């Protein structure tokens, strides 16, 4: 059976052996064609993925013994068949499954994600509200986590087997072993309940009106609208959840960063850089970091995805009206359009993040072309 599709298997050889290329003689075919094909392929894959997500969620929710009418009508109302029938008719639940599905797809193609049965709003507008809330947690947490873990990971790698390394690895391991929701509770207990330094949840103190929806992120919007006090307050509310998310992400990332950096430190080109007489600082900053970033980017992308899901629990504890809470509630209420909306959105983010990673690879590592 060996090599039933040899050309594919051989691609690895071709990239692993770029010896044959000489500048000016054999540049790969023009980037524009490649880029087009690359983008086309990505779009096709994404579309397939999204379709898969809709089918998956649809089937999943249909397999469920529950019925959305139950959670969206009072118990008394459910005993009245005419009320139930009216409800089912309103939401199209009386149609056959394929019809329901294709109706949904048809709407989807027109950019309509449907209406959430549990909030009564268009799913798209719900997402518009909840997604920025989650991003407001996830983005700073990701940035902080990256900065911290790259710093500490590099430090640990450089000081391999020294006390600093042991300490960093130990803390990361403990972090990795800590249940996020538990950590969130402990932190809340300490900083809110005991010390009173932090608010207890929510995005903004009640006495402030949320800034008008521009980006949906309160801190950004407050700044844009010139409301420094609201900005401060929003920032203050961000503190604990971001702290917890950062801690978790850092502990996930550090070990990868460290091993990536160790791998790099072990490379001949680092020895060669030292052999040239460069200072340690230059070597670490210019040579080690740069090379280590390729792998950091890989895991960072994945860590971002996991961070998004980590927020489900954190949002629960910090009363953060984000995507995670929305997903949780929709799941419990079997709110099909909402679950699908969340699924689609997350799948989109997933492909987007992958795309960004691919692009970053290209930026960081010239060996990797768009292919």
């Amino acid at each position, binding site marked *: 059976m060996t090599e039933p599709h040899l050309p594919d298997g051989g691609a690895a050889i071709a990239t692993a052996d770029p010896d044959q290329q000489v500048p000016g003689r054999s540049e790969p075919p023009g980037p524009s064609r490649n880029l087009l094909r690359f983008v086309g392929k990505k779009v096709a894959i994404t579309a397939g993925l999204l379709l898969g997500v809709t089918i998956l969620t649809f089937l999943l929710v249909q397999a469920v013994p529950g019925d959305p009418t139950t959670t969206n009508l009072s118990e008394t109302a459910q005993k009245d068949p005419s009320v139930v029938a009216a409800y089912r008719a309103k939401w199209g639940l009386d149609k056959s499954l394929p019809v329901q599905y294709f109706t949904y797809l048809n709407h989807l193609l027109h950019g309509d994600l449907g209406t959430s049965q549990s909030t009564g709003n268009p799913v798209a507008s719900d997402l518009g509200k909840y997604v920025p809330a989650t991003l407001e947690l996830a983005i700073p947490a990701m940035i902080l986590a990256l900065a911290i873990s790259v710093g500490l990971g590099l430090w640990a790698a450089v000081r391999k087997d020294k006390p600093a390394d042991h300490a960093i690895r130990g803390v990361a391991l403990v972090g990795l072993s800590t249940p996020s929701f538990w950590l969130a509770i402990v932190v809340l207990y300490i900083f809110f309940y005991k010390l009173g330094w932090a608010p207890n949840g929510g995005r903004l103190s009640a*006495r402030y*009106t949320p800034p008008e929806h521009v980006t949906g992120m309160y801190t950004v919007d407050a700044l844009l609208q010139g409301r420094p006090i*609201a900005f401060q307050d929003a920032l203050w509310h961000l503190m604990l959840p971001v702290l917890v998310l950062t801690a978790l992400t850092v502990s996930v990332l550090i070990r990868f960063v460290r091993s990536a950096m160790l791998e790099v430190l072990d490379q001949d080109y680092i020895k060669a850089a030292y052999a040239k007489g460069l200072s340690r600082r230059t070597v670490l900053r210019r040579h080690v970091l740069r090379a280590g970033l390729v792998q950091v980017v890989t895991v960072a992308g994945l860590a971002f995805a996991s961070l998004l899901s980590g927020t489900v629990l954190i949002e629960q504890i910090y009363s953060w009206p984000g995507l995670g809470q929305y997903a949780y509630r929709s799941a419990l209420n079997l709110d099909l359009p909402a679950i699908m909306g969340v699924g689609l959105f997350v799948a989109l983010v997933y492909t987007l993040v992958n795309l960004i990673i691919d692009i970053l690879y290209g930026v960081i590592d010239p060996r990797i072309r768009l292919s």
Partner: protein
Amino acid sequence: ACSSEDSGGNGGSSTLTVDTSFVVKSLDPGAVYEPTGNVIVHALYDTLVTFDGSDISKPVPDLAKSYTAAPDGKSFTFVLRDDAVFNDGSKVTAADVVFSLNRLKNLKGSAAAIVKDLSASATDEHTVVVTSAVLNPNVPTILAEPYAGILSAKLAKQHGGEDGPDASKTDKLGSYLNTATVGSGPYRIESFDAASRIVLTANDKYWGNKPAFKRVVFQNMDVQNQKLTMSKQPKSEIALDLAGDSLSGLPGALQQSGSADSYYQLRLHADPAVSEVTSNRDWVNALQAALDYKGLAALFGSSGVPAAGIVPTAYAGALPESEAQTQDLAKAKSLAEQSGVASKSVKLLYPAITFGGVDLGTIAAKVQSDAAKAGLKIELDPAPIASFLDQRRGGKVAFSFSPQLLDYPVAASVVADLMPGGGTAQAAGWTADRADPATVAAANKVLTALDAKEQVAALQDWQRLMINHSPYITLVYNSGTVVASADLKGAVYTAAGWVVDIADISSR
């Protein structure tokens, strides 16, 4: 919109914060049904009649300055006051009332089932007659509930409101009501975020006494956070979901107000074809004797009350506390043995939620462990709420458990539902032929009583009979509680359905 509150933040006088955990699906009176929605809708829309504070014994005038009941108990005449205006300044007329009540009925929302027998007509601009197709002395109470809020017909129609028979299809008003208010209540909606934050502002055209707070912010907050927040003794803040054990350990300066208006009930299917265990009277009685009602009540902290009958203590007709059920393990054991099915285990279905501050799993686990002491075997079967309701509606669930609230604050409303032929009895397989005739007779007596006193006595008799002859075991009553910061007054809990009248709250 405005950035003024950034500066006047900590004064706390202008804004009332309401901490509650919510999912508000709609602020349309025709569709509202969840507690926070009711609180808000009650503040946005006036009703014909209402209740005063925590007193739910008798509806008092609101938009109607008076009402009279016809002797047949089927027809009620409401005379509107003439100074009431909607928040656009236009007068509240009988036509608005008729429009609102028709819409409520035809919209086929959650409340439609309650009002399906009612019809309204205007005799003149200030008089409305509401007629019930069946005998129903409780019509005024029903019309006090938030879902019976009165909309401005003109404004409603402008934004797609319909009251015709096919309103359930044609009405387009619903989502508009999340952003604007077409009522005559003390507040109007300022901003609506179904899951995180809802803000009300005072209606400056309000015809009655102006509310003390200009702004009310409903913050979505889970119970634990509410407790934490209140522990910090904030200003101008109330919490609505602290109940049960989460009330303990709160600072003494906080004010608590509550009344036991919900009941937690086990339902045991009476049909042997569904379960030979739960349909076994001895087994049911054994379970009834095995339960530690005091211990169950203690799970709810100070707010729990061991059940005596079915009707919670907040309502007229409740049995006195002295009659509270007690545990009798010896009796339970002997009944269990006698039943002959004690070796069989049965699944207890319940929704996997936290209600009234207590995780239902905890209560179910307590029931399970109490039963085990008498040798009765119960397996717990939590289900997502949707699937729970769906299964129970199917009428094939042997054994289930859930908290219950009254549709409107009259105890008799539960009777029709629980007696053979009622919806719940039906789902529990309790048909007339399986029921004890005396119990059925007692129920009918409650339903036909016209006089309040007579009704109370009948209710109590009925409950005493139900204890040993019905497929229901009521465990405890629990109280909703309003916890308010020390600087507030008027934050009283009402069992009337809207929890607390926001407009009544003011600073000391």
